[in-house]
């Protein structure tokens, strides 16, 4: 999730935020998102960067009314736990309406959206969010 953002933090993590870049531990095979310098399971520092698939299944979700500054227009914000096979990620959900309510087990896909806007003059923060799948391919 990308609730805690600053210009430098967002820029440093842009490949995770824009493309779901993760790290796979070469010792035990576990995949960590966002990438970590060391595997929290086996302690190995031998990890490689991989891109996660942009399609998965919604494991669970919650609805957040207490949104950060710059996200009021998007309230309520839905946050989901998404199973991407290699690992699970926590991310915002989008295109949630009365007719398209999230359900556990629902197929979802990641698309680029605004997550927060820093006032009228500041930076626009983009991030991948998951929405009910319509079959937009990975590239």
């Amino acid at each position, binding site marked *: 999730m990308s609730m805690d953002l600053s210009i430098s933090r967002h820029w440093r993590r842009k490949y995770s935020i824009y493309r779901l870049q993760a790290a796979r531990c070469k010792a035990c095979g576990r995949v960590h998102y966002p990438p970590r310098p060391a595997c929290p399971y086996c302690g190995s520092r031998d990890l490689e960067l991989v891109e996660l698939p942009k399609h998965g299944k919604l494991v669970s979700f919650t609805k957040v009314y207490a949104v950060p500054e710059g996200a009021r227009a998007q309230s309520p914000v839905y946050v989901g736990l998404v199973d991407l096979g290699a690992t699970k990620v926590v991310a915002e959900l989008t295109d949630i309406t009365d007719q398209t309510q999230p359900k556990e087990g629902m197929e979802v896909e990641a698309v680029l959206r605004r997550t927060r806007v820093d006032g009228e003059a500041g930076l626009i923060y983009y991030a991948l969010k998951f929405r009910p799948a319509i079959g937009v391919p990975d*590239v």
Partner: protein
Amino acid sequence: MPGPQAGIHGWGAYIPIYRLPLSEIARTWGWHPEQYKGLAVEEKAVAGPDEDATTMGYEAARNAIARAQIKPSEIQAVFFGTESKPYAVKPSATIIAEALGITPLTMASDLEFACRAASEGMRALSGMASSGLIKYGLVIGSDTAQANPGDVLEFTAASGAAAFVIGPTSGAAAIIEDSVTFVTDTPDFWRRAQEPYPLHGEGFTGEPAYFYHIKNAVKTLFDKSGLRPTDFKYAIFHQPNGKFPLKVGQDLGFTMEQLKDGLVTPMIGNTYNASALMGFAKVLDKAKPGDRILLAPFGSGAGSDAYSIVVTDAVEAKKPLAPTVDQYLARKVTIDYSAYSKNRGIIYVIK
């Protein structure tokens, strides 16, 4: 004499899920209930609260790259045509290129020419691809069209995107066999740098702008290529409303049969830079090998391009690789004027 030729390797569209019935606009602003009936549009597509021209362009581009069946890193130029740039200064093209894995070895810029900036990008890319400067280029037309609340433009100003991967002729789904551009200085529509909404020069929008430029571009293409309306299976024009594209098409000698499949504005409103190009994407979704397509985008200020495009055998295998325009048209949720106001940021919030 045909010019240098280029290929269209992938096409993609995007339409946001939200639709605002035009009756809501008429009700809110006290228009006569019949006011918008002459536009031949009943509802318009509206971007969500977390969408803008960049995010919509991203999705259309992803669909186009998937159909092109190339790696994003093979793209060496990204042209983003819009008149609703999220930033006045800071390119959308680099954000999309980064998010799709096209960076860093690529040209990238945002183009402005009202509704035809993306078409200019398409024509520039076809020259760059045919010259060998680049192998593949990506052009995106995307707009969250703005209109002053209460202005007649509000009935049609809609949101959507279309994108194409342009490259060599070999392996392409369609070949751009010829094209021309026709521009003049015309005061039909403008938006000053610090203004949120455009103005239109009332007497100029129809005949001296839209019809004059499109007709001259298409007639020049006919003269140059020797082609006639009967040589085309489909004809697609810029679509500021549901009526103009039919009128200009019929004036040029095309039939309703040639015009109907390229229409999208009657269903979702005018998506500006995506208007004619989304109509083109919709036609590619159903076109057969050998079909010839006339494409004529228009932009205020003013100018029009006319392209003659021939579909190849490669089109069939690419069709199922991404959602079609019809799938996006069918995916819709109706909203009211207050949700539209919030989504499009037309409620002034005191900070």
